[in-house]
């Protein structure tokens, strides 16, 4: 018997919104620009879209975005899975298209959090929520405090060093130096990272991602729906998802992320193993996260990622090219990076990544995370046909 997963489904278009600091657009107009570009790659227009996925744009969900774009979907979702929402959406859209519940799915997102300076440092106090009662009064930064507690435990338990973390930041920067659209392109050394100020021990400023404007759009459909595509469609081989905790005290083990489930599901569906991956696009919101994902997705054993990435394995020319856009650490982090991980993976598989192109890239993995101390995870395996 063949399942829904055996119907080949493709990403047929992918585009960035304007990035960095965007003073002359709204979030909606940014999504419109990216969506139009992504649809035009597939030879499609807004009128062809019958499924819409977005989230995390403040109060605005698929209803508001659908109104703006003139789309009346027959399949819609605005689930909040944090920055990983877009990998979740690929999973759900793939199944919905395969089941015939929709034909052309648009996934879009944009944020102007740098221009608006609207990131909060703490959860709202005294609103009766569990976070207000049991987290906010103790002064936990939202989300750096949660991630710092995760990093401290991980380093303590497995002997991971600040230098191991710094290597992730340097690898991201090496890639960003090859990407004209990256926000931070100056040379960066391990010593530079180690000399940056501590924000919340053990995390230093350069262990933390950027705060920029940005976003993107991708289009998902069967291949025959994109007959007039100008760009090569990229096949979705597999996807998986999971989530664990919201409140950091409720996480049973801060050294394991829900990627251990999402990776297993996605790789199993795709029929691949970590050794088959040519390009890895991990959600590098904090440096130690990349180490945890490498372990949870099975690239190396638990506690061994620090040694695994030594010798520049993640850097340009390394054995596992990772964060090839420059990632959230050096390219762009618009509050939710997950959409841009997918855009970069598509570009690498199409062979259109310019100076940062990974030679002969056939299989790429976008691994998203979201929430507080790796609350959510979703993994998408993409392949060049």
């Amino acid at each position, binding site marked *: 018997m063949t399942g829904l997963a055996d119907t080949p489904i493709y990403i047929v278009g992918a585009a960035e919104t304007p990035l960095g600091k965007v003073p002359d657009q709204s979030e909606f107009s940014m999504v419109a620009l990216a969506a139009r570009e992504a649809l035009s790659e597939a030879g499609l227009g807004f009128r062809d879209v019958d499924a819409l996925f977005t989230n995390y744009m403040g109060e605005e969900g698929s209803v508001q975005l659908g109104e703006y774009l003139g789309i009346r979907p027959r399949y819609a979702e605005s689930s909040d899975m944090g920055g990983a929402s877009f990998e979740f959406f690929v999973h759900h859209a793939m199944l919905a298209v395969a089941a015939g519940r929709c034909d052309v799915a648009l996934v879009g997102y944009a944020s102007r959090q740098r221009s608006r300076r609207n990131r909060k440092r703490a959860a709202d106090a005294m609103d009766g929520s569990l976070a207000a009662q049991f987290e906010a009064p*103790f002064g936990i930064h939202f989300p750096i405090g949660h991630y710092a507690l995760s990093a401290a435990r991980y380093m303590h338990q497995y002997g991971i060093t600040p230098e191991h973390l710094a290597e992730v930041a340097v690898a991201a920067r090496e890639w960003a130096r090859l990407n004209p659209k990256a926000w931070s392109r100056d040379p960066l050394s391990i010593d530079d990272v180690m000399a940056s100020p501590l924000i919340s021990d053990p995390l230093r400023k350069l262990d933390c991602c950027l705060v920029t404007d940005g976003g993107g759009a991708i289009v998902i459909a069967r291949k025959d729906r994109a007959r007039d595509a100008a760009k090569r469609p990229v096949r979705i081989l597999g996807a998986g998802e999971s989530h664990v905790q919201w409140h950091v005290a409720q996480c049973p083990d801060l050294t394991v992320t829900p990627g251990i489930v999402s990776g297993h599901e996605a790789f199993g569906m795709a029929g691949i193993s970590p050794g088959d991956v040519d390009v890895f696009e991990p959600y590098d919101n904090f440096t130690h996260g990349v180490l945890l994902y490498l372990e949870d997705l099975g690239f190396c054993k638990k506690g061994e990622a620090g040694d695994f990435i030594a010798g520049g394995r993640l850097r340009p020319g390394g054995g596992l090219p990772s964060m090839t856009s420059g990632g959230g650490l050096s390219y762009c982090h618009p509050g939710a990076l997950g959409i841009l991980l997918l855009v970069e993976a598509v570009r690498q598989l199409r062979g259109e990544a310019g100076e940062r192109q990974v030679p002969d890239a056939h299989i790429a993995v976008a691994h998203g995370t979201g929430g507080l101390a790796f609350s959510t995870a979703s993994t998408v395996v993409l392949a060049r046909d």
Partner: protein
Amino acid sequence: MTDAPSLSDLGIADPTTELFWKACLERRLIIQKCRSCASHQFYPRPFCLSCESDALEWVEAKGKGTVYSLTTVRIPVIEALEPPYVLALVELDEGPRLLTNIDDGPARIGDRVTLAWRERGGLPPLPIFRPAGS
């Protein structure tokens, strides 16, 4: 005559945590214990996370624990706390973990800590910890 507002009405508690915060007013740390399987849990729920029994009762924690993780916060986050300060996850001897602060001295992961109380920002006294023996 009208009733005084509950802690839930004030946004300090919710209806399921009213008893917890009232106990804090008396500087008592209470957590849930399952009468069926004897496991403890926090925050409170109407069922046991371990065995799904609904036979739960509030018990007073002994106030001893071990540091599971900690971080020194070096940027301002809330008005009531001047950085740097220590934010920690403390695992109570009964099992549940609490997000809390550690005052009065250096602490590391694995250290033993003891319950203390701090008044802060118009809230009931908050359960925080200090190094055991300090």
